[in-house]
């Protein structure tokens, strides 16, 4: 079970707590986590990745194990601690605007 921490506005949109859990079949990567997240919460499609390009939206970042993984390739394997559920995968909104 993969743990994912959502930013505030995505929690309200998906009507969830801060942390959600999703099952990922196969390698645990940014893409496979987001695919599983969007399958469980379809209202989040387009809010994290662009609908067409599937690229991370510019003002969101991905963190895990105190590392910024935002610029890692979407199919790169994530740390074992994320895959095992020991550590969550964080989706964080940029601190910007007002």
């Amino acid at each position, binding site marked *: 079970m993969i743990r994912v921490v959502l930013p505030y506005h995505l929690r309200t949109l998906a009507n969830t707590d801060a942390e959600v859990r999703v099952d990922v079949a196969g390698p645990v990567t940014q893409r496979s986590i987001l695919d599983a997240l969007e*399958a469980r919460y379809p*209202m989040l499609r387009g809010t994290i990745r662009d609908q067409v390009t599937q690229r991370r939206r510019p003002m*969101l970042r991905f963190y895990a194990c105190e590392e910024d993984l935002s610029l890692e390739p979407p199919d790169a394997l994530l740390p074992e601690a994320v895959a095992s559920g020991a550590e969550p995968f964080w989706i964080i909104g*940029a601190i910007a605007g007002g």
Partner: protein
Amino acid sequence: MSKVRVLVGTRKGAFILTSDGKRQKWDISGPHFAGWEIYHLKGSSVDPNRLYASQSSGWFGQIIQRSDDGGKTWHQPGTPAGAPMMTPEGMPKAESNKFVYDTSPETGKPLTTHQWYDGTQHPWEFKRVWHLEPSLSDPETVYAGVEDAALFRSTDGGKNWHELAGLRDAHGSKWSPGAGGMGLHTILLDSTNPRRLYIAISAAGAFRTEDGGKTWKPINRGLHSQYIPNPTAEVGHCVHHIAMHRSRPHVLFMQKHWDIMRSDDAGDSWHEVSGNLPTDFGFPIEVHAHEPETIYVVPIKSDSEHYVADGKLRVFRSRTGGNEWEALTKGLPQENCYVNVLRDAMSIDTLDKCGIYFGTTGGQVYVSADSGDSWAPIVRDLPAVLSVEVQTLP
């Protein structure tokens, strides 16, 4: 007794204001979608409890929300919480926040490019929905005006959206963004001819279709814009808003960047009716519900100073279809006021004593229950108001 329901979109959420026909005591609900920008909400005239809302964020993009109970509850069409994304047949479920521009069937690449600020060509990039316009005959059909400028239509209650891409054939490569972006902000439906629509884009101008959206014609003859290389160009004008009376769909009133304009031939030609206005820069323009020659504007100081002139919040009314204007000030602040009223932030009810509503960038929503003679605030301290739409309910 009739009621009114006022749908208010703000920088930080939506609010719904309801009152009886006297329009003196108000119930306020909200914020709905707290913290999100709500560019526009609008209800279906066929089913007034069917509401559509554009919810967006610089972080999280575009969401479409729908209510089927007059705003008590909302959902994203086709994607209830926790529902599987695939149907039992393996088909992907509807994706109500997916706005994808048409591509060339030959190359798979986006259709056309538009003019960027520096004069180079730039690809179309979806940013947000500025305006939602429900069909006059079918609550499941709704149009969306978006940035970068294009017109989308849904025929399944907002679940799926498809571009009416023929619009971009109307010299799309010459369109360019205004300071606020290149948005399609005005959609007018002709109640006497379902195949005719008018739309307006900043900064491209006004366009008309006579075949339900397949083909479009620029309708900007008579507009004069000194800030563009060719002041009388066929496209490129910064039209801010257009209004019409439903009984006379061939008569259009326009608030351009500067200038109040009028057309009596469905937009084929325009002439200026700014008349005695102290300034003719502004955003909203609306027509009285029962008097097709009575129109309202809220001029602001200039293109460089987006607030009302002289610290006075004044609505101007013309009862002569333009040229002769009177300032309406009773109940509105007449000193130290420096707000603006945005293009979709004015609306008209259809009660016998016609009500006028507008919201300001300072968070006030005002009502006049007597066609503008006197005004009162409904609320004073909302976030900046982006849009105001009123529904007249039985």
